[in-house]
């Protein structure tokens, strides 16, 4: 059973269509990337999933049915619009928000202390939130999202404001949780993070889902129009190559429409070129994102 099952939802605000015909499923133990340019409808989609907004049409099932108040405790949500009580000490805010999530006072303290240690915030626990750095506040925000051990985690830009060390730590935590079976939906603009973390993605553009599926499959769909070649000697002119770019000792060959990588390899062998490396160039998610968003290409 999918943890989250969204089917053909539509949400408008006045004349503006925020989300239209968006469908996706997220399964236990999966890290799912919800991507899209600013204003594409990602946050609206999440708010529909979390029952903040009611869709005009379509269906949303969380944990197998409509979202109930009891099931809200099974969700950890770090929204795009987030913050903490600035005038209070860090530990007081964290205890309070943990109790809001249904933990007893003692359990809230015990678990919060553990997360404070893990996020290197223990020594700052008596400081007022406003006196913490942006990165520290971001880590505190993550603690509020994780402290009640949710089964579904929805995190919007989880790495914003974090330095590389903390980014890696958060990545490790998310991967660890996914391995334990937690379902994770991650909204981000940082494509390299998605490439590293996500199993499947949904790319939303102008309120509609334009790319959906396994990351590897999507990249494969966009591959085949270029190859990367490294040879023992100079690379001769080859038919069907429209552009060649040197990249760290290899050459990136962009192919003409209808010309296949197999034909390029055959030509190289025919010309007895010593081929040290030959691979079909797979586009980065950044490139796919730009191509789809600016070109309006749907798959």
């Amino acid at each position, binding site marked *: 059973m999918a943890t989250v099952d969204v089917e053909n939802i539509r949400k408008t605000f006045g004349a503006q269509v925020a989300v239209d015909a968006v469908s996706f499923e997220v399964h236990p133990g999966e890290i799912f990337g919800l991507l899209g340019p600013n204003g594409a409808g990602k946050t609206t989609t999440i708010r529909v999933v979390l029952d903040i907004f009611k869709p005009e049409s379509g269906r949303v099932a969380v944990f197998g049915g409509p979202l109930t108040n009891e099931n809200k405790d099974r969700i950890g949500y770090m929204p795009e619009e*987030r913050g903490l009580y600035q005038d209070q000490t860090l530990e007081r805010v964290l205890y309070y928000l943990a*109790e809001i999530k249904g933990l007893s006072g003692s359990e809230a303290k015990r678990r919060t202390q553990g997360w404070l240690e893990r996020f290197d915030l223990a020594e700052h626990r008596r400081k007022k939130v406003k006196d913490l750095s942006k990165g520290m506040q971001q880590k505190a925000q993550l603690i509020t999202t994780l402290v009640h051990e949710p089964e579904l985690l929805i995190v919007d830009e989880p790495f914003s404001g974090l330095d590389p060390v903390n980014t890696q730590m958060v990545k490790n935590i998310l991967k660890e949780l996914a391995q334990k079976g937690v379902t994770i939906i991650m909204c981000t603009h940082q494509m390299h993070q998605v490439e590293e973390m996500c199993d499947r993605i949904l790319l939303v553009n102008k309120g509609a889902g334009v790319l959906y599926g396994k990351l590897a499959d999507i990249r494969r769909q966009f591959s085949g129009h270029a190859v990367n070649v490294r040879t023992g000697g100079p690379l001769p002119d080859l038919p069907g190559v429209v552009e060649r770019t040197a990249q760290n000792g290899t050459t990136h060959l962009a192919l003409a429409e209808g010309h296949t990588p197999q034909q390029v390899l055959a030509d190289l062998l025919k010309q007895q070129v010593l081929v040290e490396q030959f691979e079909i160039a797979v586009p980065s998610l950044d490139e796919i994102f730009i191509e789809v968003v600016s070109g309006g290409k749907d798959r």
Partner: protein
Amino acid sequence: MNRRWVIARHEFTRHVFRKRYLFSLLSLPLMLLTMVGLIALMIAIDSNETPLGVVDPARQLQLDLPLPEEDERERVDILRFETETEARAALEAEEIQAYYVLPENFAHDPAVQLVYFDEPGDNATRYFRDLTLANLLLQLPPERAARAMEGINLSATTPDNERSFSPEKLLDTVLPALTSFVFLFVVFSAAGYFIAIVAEEKENRTIEYLTTSIPSGVFISGKILGLIGVSALQIAVWLAFALAALLLGLPLAGVELPETLTLAPTTLLFMAAIFVPAYVMVVALLTAIGAAVTETSEGQQFAALITLPMSMSFYLFAYILSNPNSPLAIALSMFPITAPTLMPIRWAITAVPIWQIAATSAGLTLAALAGFWLAARALELGLLRFEKRLKLRELFTRRSA
């Protein structure tokens, strides 16, 4: 712990331990303390312990006559002089602060002459007045003399026997009116908290986290409960200090309080019927404003829509006192916004019919329910509006997000 109480506790402790709240909590007691202190100071300035003189060659006045305890507290020594010349010499020598000259037939014509350079102390003149009165009453039986010494003991009853007024029932008259003043103070000082009830969570961006964790109703009711606790503490402290100041200050100012003060259950019922729904109404309306606006400063401007008519009602105080049963007084004392201030004043000075109290209480309750409905609508519609406040029209016309 129930999450509503988690929120209520957090809200309560968050405000109660703020310097701003503690300052506000202690401001009224400090003001009252200052007032009592000033009264005491004025009394001390007006007191003079120097002996008085009395020209009474015929020994008409018994100077060692014991007086009631409260009069004895103001005792000053009184020196008897045979002639006015001796008394004047003593006054010039500052041995006495003033002297009285008794007429020869004092018992039948008790008009005395007071001679002084500087006005004598209030305590001294009061003591001499009581002493002469006690002397004049010596011819009466002791119990009648004692009653006469007590002075006026007015007891009034309305024609329908519904209400009666007497010194023992002072609290029945004063407490509701006093509470209406405290109520207004509390509304003014707590308005900021209720206005900021959701605006703060919107400003600090915790609202989305909180409302996806718990139902909006639990969230808002927990916050309201916490803030009611904050205000209740304030009301209790202020009322206790106001009563203490009254009970301490009045005797200091020379107003005698009866030995036994009673408080009728009907007074408590009246206060509960008016102040409880009135408070809930104010809280709900302020909360609705707080939920509809995006910034606390903006909310404070809108709060004046409620606090201003309430405070304006005090300008009608004199009119209500002289015309407590006029159609305007009745209408304003029953109108929800002005009822909490004007109905207790009418209660203090006239016999308010039961139906008017019941109708006022019902009106306040309905207004409170309407306020809660508005607050819930405003919270629901304005939940994720961070930059644009809700329009009043939207509360009645827009469907949920």
